[in-house]
């Protein structure tokens, strides 16, 4: 999971989930604490989906 998904792709990471920001990869400080946790949970679920998806080459899951 990285906010620099294009960079992750260029160096050959195979399953990439785009994060929010370099300074807050799996968070969003503009949200309330509860909403931020929900947002993070969605991102982690996205990562679990990526893990379950067959890929042939570096792939970004948005």
């Amino acid at each position, binding site marked *: 999971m990285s906010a620099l998904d294009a960079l992750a792709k260029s160096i050959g990471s195979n399953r990439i989930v785009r994060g929010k920001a370099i300074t807050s*990869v799996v968070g969003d400080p503009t949200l309330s604490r509860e909403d931020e946790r929900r947002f993070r949970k969605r991102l982690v679920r996205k990562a679990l989906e990526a893990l379950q998806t*067959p890929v042939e080459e570096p792939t970004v899951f948005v």
Partner: protein
Amino acid sequence: MTTLRVVHYLNQFFAGIGAEDKADTPPGRREGALGPGRLLQQTLGERGRVVATVYCGDNHVSENVEALGDIVDLIADARPDIVITGPAFSAGRYGVACGEIAARVRERLNVVAVTAMHPENAAAELYRTKVYVVATSKSAAGMADALAAVARMALKLASGERLGSPVDEGYLPTGRRVFENAPRTAGERAIDMLLRKLRGERYMTEWAVPRYARVTPAAPLRDPSKATIALITTGGLVPRGNPDRLESGYATKWLRYSIKGLDELTPDRWQSVHGGFDTTLINLDPHRVVPLDAARELEREGIIGRLFDELLVTTGNTSVIPDIRRFAREMTQELKAAGVEGVILTST
């Protein structure tokens, strides 16, 4: 003109002692040039004389730490002005020996040291910042070209002449920045390059985009609800106070911290030591770099089978690629042995 004293290092094969069956040969020295050293001598002409050849078997030098010291002693005894190691081409053990010996000689004897190998030799990445590494072909078919470049560079360095750029001289970039006054601005040069590219003409980039080895994608995880999932971060998250002194950049290690039974990463106990970005937001809430709270929730809900008991951490900042490749190898080995089937790695 004084004739410079050159000492040449070779492995057992190029020294003519034997192939793999002689790879245990201990360090030794002969007077004068041996094997490719004869061609080196021709290339040096009157300006340098190969006074001695020091050799060692590929296995012996890799397996005996003290062998390196002995080799440097043998080289020192021949009182060199210049030390040439290799060329090693694509040979792995030989490449490391050539790089290490050249680096030690330069450090200990303060003489000119030049080595040579193929740019994809793993040792090239390890040593190109420590010694001059001439780029060679993959195999010894390119011996003459390699030695010509080695001899030219070594003689230049020995006479105190300034070396040209890596591209002009044929060595691998050393990572040092040399300031120059360019007659035209970067913008002008970039437009010129673009126009040449559009016209299908030849152009030379000033900064090559590095290429990385492709990794075959792992097979998909069948069922996360039955799997153990590990959390890793390159965001430099460590217990507050950084007890294990994780570096903020140029990390030389990775660390593991128990998260067994832990539901949250609180800012009073965790901090990021990453030196490559502003860590304020993470230090207010460490979950912004390691999603432990969300992952625990998913574990409780049965969506994740089990979270691995350790958080694996390093700092991904100005990283040295062979080092972080080693981290990945070590982490993978340990996680596999522990039965971990999936990893969520957060990178900043």
